[in-house]
C-alpha cells in the first residue's frame, strides 16, 4: 500500500494500512505464503548476485562435467546432476531469478497497460469505452498461449521479449477490473468536487480516482506474477522461452523429460519450484484480497 488509507469501492468502510496488516496476519496460510515469497525472492536474487560475482554454490551451474552426469541427490550435489553433469540445485536456484524477473516484468507491463486502457475506458465512457471494451473482448477471444507461442517463435527469445509478450497478452482482465472501479469511483462526491474546482481529466484520473482504485489492482498484480511465471515455464518447456544454456525452470524440465525414468530429480525439483512459487503468489494475492474486503471478516 502506497498510502496510509485504503478505500474499498463504494463502501464507506475504510481499511487503514495498519488495519490491513492486522487482517492479513489473521490468515495463516497467507502469512506463510508471503514468507515463502520473500524467501524465494531473497534466495533467487541472492544466488544470482553470487553467481555474477563468481561465487558458485555448490558448483558452477553452467559448468558441464560429463563424467558426473546423472548423479542422484548426494551431499555434493543436493539435488543431483543432469545429463551434462551440471548441478541441478545450482540450476534451479539460478533459474529462480529468471522466473521472478519475467514474472514481475510481465505482470508490471500487463498492469500498466491494463490500468491505462481501463482508466481511459471507465473515465470517459461513451464511444471510447465501447471501442476499448470491444478490443478487450477481441483480445480475450484469441487463445493467448498460442499467440505467445507464435510471437515467441518469430522474435529472438530474450528474457525481455518473453516478459513483454506475456505482458501484452494478459492485460485484459486488469483493464476490466480498473474500468469497473472507475465507473464506481467517478461518481463519488470527491471526484465531483474536483470537477467543480476545475481539475483537469489527468488530475482527476491520477490523483483522485486511481489511488482509490489501486487496492484490488495490487491483488491482481500479485496473481498475474504467478500467471506469468507459469506461462514462462510452459514456453520454456516447449523450447520457445528462455534458451539453454541459461537455466529456467521450464527448460530444465524440458531437458530432463527424456530421462524421466532414470533421473527423476531432473524433473521433480524444478517442478516443485514452479509449484511452490506460483502457489505462494496465488495465496498471497488471495490473502490480500480477503484482507481488503470488509465483507470477508467472518472467514478470516
Amino acid at each position, binding site marked *: 500500500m502506497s*498510502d*496510509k*488509507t*485504503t*478505500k474499498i469501492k463504494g463502501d*464507506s468502510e*475504510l481499511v*487503514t494500512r495498519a488495519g490491513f496488516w492486522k487482517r492479513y496476519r489473521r490468515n495463516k496460510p497467507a502469512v506463510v505464503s508471503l514468507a515463502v515469497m520473500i524467501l524465494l525472492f531473497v534466495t533467487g536474487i541472492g544466488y544470482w548476485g553470487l553467481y555474477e560475482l563468481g561465487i558458485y554454490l555448490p558448483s558452477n551451474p553452467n559448468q558441464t562435467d560429463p563424467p558426473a552426469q546423472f548423479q542422484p541427490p548426494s551431499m555434493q550435489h543436493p539435488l543431483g546432476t543432469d545429463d551434462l553433469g551440471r548441478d541441478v540445485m545450482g540450476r534451479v536456484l539460478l533459474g529462480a531469478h529468471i522466473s521472478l524477473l519475467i514474472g514481475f516484468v510481465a505482470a508490471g507491463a500487463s498492469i500498466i497497460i491494463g490500468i491505462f486502457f481501463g482508466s481511459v475506458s471507465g473515465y470517459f465512457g461513451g464511444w471510447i469505452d465501447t471501442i476499448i471494451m470491444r478490443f478487450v473482448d477481441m483480445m480475450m477471444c484469441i487463445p493467448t498461449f498460442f499467440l505467445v507461442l507464435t510471437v515467441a517463435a518469430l522474435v529472438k527469445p530474450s528474457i525481455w521479449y518473453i516478459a513483454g509478450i506475456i505482458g501484452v497478452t494478459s492485460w485484459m482482465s486488469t483493464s476490466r477490473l480498473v474500468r469497473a472501479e472507475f465507473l464506481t469511483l467517478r461518481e*463519488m*462526491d*470527491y471526484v*465531483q*468536487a*474536483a*470537477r*467543480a*474546482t*476545475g*481539475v483537469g481529466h489527468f*488530475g482527476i484520473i491520477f*490523483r*483522485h480516482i486511481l*489511488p*482509490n482504485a489501486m487496492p484490488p489492482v495490487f491483488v491482481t498484480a500479485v496473481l498475474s506474477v504467478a500467471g506469468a511465471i507459469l506461462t514462462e515455464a510452459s514456453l520454456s518447456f516447449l523450447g520457445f522461452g528462455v534458451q539453454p544454456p541459461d537455466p529456467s525452470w521450464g527448460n530444465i524440465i524440458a531437458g530432463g523429460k527424456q530421462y524421466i525414468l532414470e533421473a527423476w530429480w531432473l524433473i521433480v525439483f524444478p517442478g516443485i519450484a514452479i509449484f511452490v512459487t506460483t502457489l505462494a503468489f496465488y495465496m498471497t494475492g488471495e490473502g490480500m484480497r480477503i484482507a481488503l474486503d470488509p465483507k470477508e471478516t467472518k472467514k478470516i
Partner: protein
Amino acid sequence: MIEQIEKPLVVIDALRTHFGKGKRTVRAVDGVDLVIPRGKTVALVGESGSGKTTVGRTMLKLIPATGGKVLFDGYDIFSTSGRDLKKLRQRMQMIFQDPAASLNPRMTVEKIIAEPLKVHFSMSRTQRRQRVAELLQQVELSPRYMNRYPHEFSGGQRQRIGIARALASNPDFIVCDEPVSALDVSIQGQILNLLSDLQQQLGLSYLFVAHDLTVVEHFADIIAVMYLGRIVEIASKQVVLERHHGREHLRHPYSLALLSSIPVIDPAKRQNRVKLTGEMPSPLNPPCGCAFHPRCPLTAKLAAEAPQSETTEIPTSSGTIRVMKRCTQQAPQLQAVDNDAVHKHACIMLQD
C-alpha cells in the same frame, strides 16, 4: 437617493435536466427559473426526488443540462468552455451533503484544500501552506490537522474541511447541497452559523438545497419550494416566517404540507396537520396538468363541493380519488401573489 439596481449574480432561466432518452426520460429538472441576488441565500426545498440537487449540480456543469440557460454574472455557463470555464469554476463552488464521501480518503487535509489553490492560483508551496492554514482557521479548525486524513475526523469537522476547500478558490457563489442533513442536530447549528458568518465576511451568495424548511427559514433570504422538477412556490423569508405570528404565509398546498410536517413542540399551537398520501410520482411519467394533483389536499377538498361536471376521477395507488378537472388539464405557471415582488406560486385553484 438614486436607487441602484444591481444585476443579480445568478439567473437561471427555464433550466431543464433530463436523464435518459425517449420513453425512459427522467425529467429531473423541468423548467426552473430562479434568480440569486448578490450576497443573498436562496434555498431550494423539496422532498427527495424533487430535483433540487440536480439543479445545483447542473448549474456547476457537473451534469449536462438538457435545456435552458444559467447566467453567472452575465456569462452563459453552458456555452463556456476551456479557460473561461475554469475562470468561472473558480468563482463558483460546491459543498456536499455527505462529508465522508466528498473528501478523497487518500489525500491529506492539506492536499484537499490546496488543490483549488493549485488549479487557480500560482503560489509557492509555502504560500499555499500558509493559505491552507488560514482557511482552516476560517472554518474554526486547527491548522495542526493539516497532515491528517479525512477518516480521522468527525462528521462536523469533515464538513468544515469541505467548506474550507470550497472557500479556497475565493468564490462568489457556493452551492450548498444539503450541507447539514448528514450531521447531528447539535452540529447542524454550528455549521449553519459558520456558513452565515462566512457569508457576511466574504460577501458570498448561496444556493442552499435542503429538504427541511426549519433548516432554511432563518438562514435563507428567499425560499423556493420544488416539486417534481419545478418550482411550485417562491417567497421571501419574511413570508415564510409569518407563520410564527399566525398570519398568512405560504399559499401552495404542497408548501403548506411541507410546513405542517415540521414538528411543533407546543401542543397548544399544534394545528391540523396536512398529511400527504402516497409517494411522489415518478418523474419518468409525471401526472398531466399540475403534477401535484394526485396528492393535493386542496383539489380534493374543492372537488368534494364542486359540481360533477368540473371534477374527474383519477386512479391512485390507494383507490380512486376525485379532483378538479382543471388541475389535470392545465399546467400551472408561477404567478405573483398580491403586490409582493418575490412571492409567487403555481396553483391554478388559488390563482382564480
